């Protein structure tokens, strides 16, 4: 059974403090790489891995780091982990590595990673920090994949295109054509589609919260 703390961390990461649509942190990859599901999922998982590991590493050594120089130390730790992911992807998923390109090394500068390290891992226990990093990362991955799926369906009419880049040639037939003979709405794949899509996701979440709030506390009509 999970403790109350752990459940709070999971709920915060996945929904209440979701990095993608609540904190609006890490926008650079969210907007640039969410043009299809495969890219979004790969970068999301890579980020989640780096976040969990860096949170854990920082929490382990948090009492040894002198306070004034903590940010450079955090960045160094994150950079080491990102290098590991970068080299691993280059070795085992080279075509995907070529597609994601600069966005893998750029995980270092993704502010959500440093934000969690600074705000959470430097103060809390190691297990909680790893859980927080993983949940925040998965929350971001969820937003990335949703956005990627919407943009891919509207823009190309398919799902999972390019999956062979991640899993090798045997996955070539896994692409799901959602709308056959679709001319493609290119703007959804181009940058404007990312902004419009992210804005719509944030709006949907706000509408949902507003509905819940009015359902819990029905508005009292103003007396004349």
């Amino acid at each position: 059974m999970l403790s109350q703390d752990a459940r709070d961390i999971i709920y915060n990461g996945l929904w209440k403090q979701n990095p993608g649509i609540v904190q609006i942190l890490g926008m650079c990859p969210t907007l640039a790489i969410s043009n299809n599901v495969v890219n979004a999922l790969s970068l999301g998982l890579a980020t989640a891995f780096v976040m969990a590991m860096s949170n854990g590493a920082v929490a382990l050594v948090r009492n040894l780091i002198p306070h004034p120089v903590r940010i450079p130390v955090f960045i160094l730790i994150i950079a080491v982990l990102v290098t590991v992911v970068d080299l691993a992807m280059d070795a085992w998923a080279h075509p995907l590595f070529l597609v994601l390109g600069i966005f893998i090394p750029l995980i270092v500068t993704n502010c959500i990673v440093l934000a969690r390290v600074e705000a959470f891992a430097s103060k809390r226990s190691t297990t909680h920090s790893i859980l927080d990093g993983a949940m925040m990362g998965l929350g971001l991955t969820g937003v990335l994949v949703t956005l990627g799926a919407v943009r891919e369906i509207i823009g190309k009419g398919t799902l999972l295109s390019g999956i062979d880049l991640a899993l090798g040639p045997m996955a070539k037939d896994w692409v799901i054509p959602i709308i056959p003979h679709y001319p493609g709405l290119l703007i959804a794949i181009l940058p404007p589609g990312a902004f419009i899509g992210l804005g719509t996701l944030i709006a949907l979440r706000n509408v949902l919260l507003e509905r819940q709030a009015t359902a819990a506390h029905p508005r009292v009509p103003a007396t004349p």
Partner: protein
Amino acid sequence: MNGSPYILRERNSVTVVMLKVLAALVPGVIAHAWLFGPGILVSLLLCGAFAIGFEAFVLLMRGIPLKPFLSDGSALVTAALLALALPTLAPWWLYLIGMFFAVVIAKQLYGGLGQNLFNPAMVAYAALIVSFPVYMTQWASPQDLANHTPSLLEAFDLVFSGGGSISPDAYTSATVLDTWKTQARLGKAVADIRGLPIFGWAGGRGSEIVALMYLGGGLLLLWNRVITWHIPAAFLAGISVTAGVLHGIEPTRHADALFHLLSGAALLGAFFIATDPVTAASTPRGKLIYAALAGFLTVIIRTFGGYPDGVAFAILLTNVAVPFIDAYTQPRVFGHQHGGKT
């Protein structure tokens, strides 16, 4: 900082202004139908219907009364401007997606008429040319050049079912701006390019007449005081000067100023699109700066950009600068000195 002026007088309500704008577009539409076939009527009808539909849908969702906002005519003006900026005889869903971007995204999501930062028709045009470059460059050929100009019924058939056996090549061609760009990149001589049948005496064959009709309609708007002279004059001056300088530097590659003024959406943009009271600058000096910048950018984008016409992108880019321009060009209030001191 002052906002755009309110329209308070009953005789000059939003509805009356919008109707005057629509009336001023009539000469251009008639010339278009005369010279390019009745396809324009189909696209005007479709855009108008889609605009009303989307506007009513969003107003219902927002819980806003339909009648005062639907009857102000602003959605119809957006629809008419977009229909005139799009190729005729395109598939019906092109107009549907265009009006969705114009009315739902560019206008209503920002808060409706008066709140939108960007010109709705131009947002839609930009979204469409980015998304469907092929459909957006197949323009109806002038009647005297086309192998076959579709009649009104055939135009409906083409728009809704794609026409089946008739190849688009029979009734469409690239615009002069597009032709100029591709031919000049191939290194053709100016005289050879100008000799192509698609060119008229100064701009495109047929389209130059339509552009002059927009000029006439625009002068009617000026005479009716719906718009002031600042924006059209500065916009056209921006185009002429920039095109003139480019032409002067390298006459073998760049078209002259008259060509730029009479081709594409230059005159339509100068009098009807750049003058949109919501998205344009509102101070007199600001209007001059805004429109001259838009004219300059139009020629720059046409000459060095990837897309044939630059009016839409130029106006959208200068829309972004409008709050900044307005903030720095506030006129001196009577009785005060510059800088707001008494």
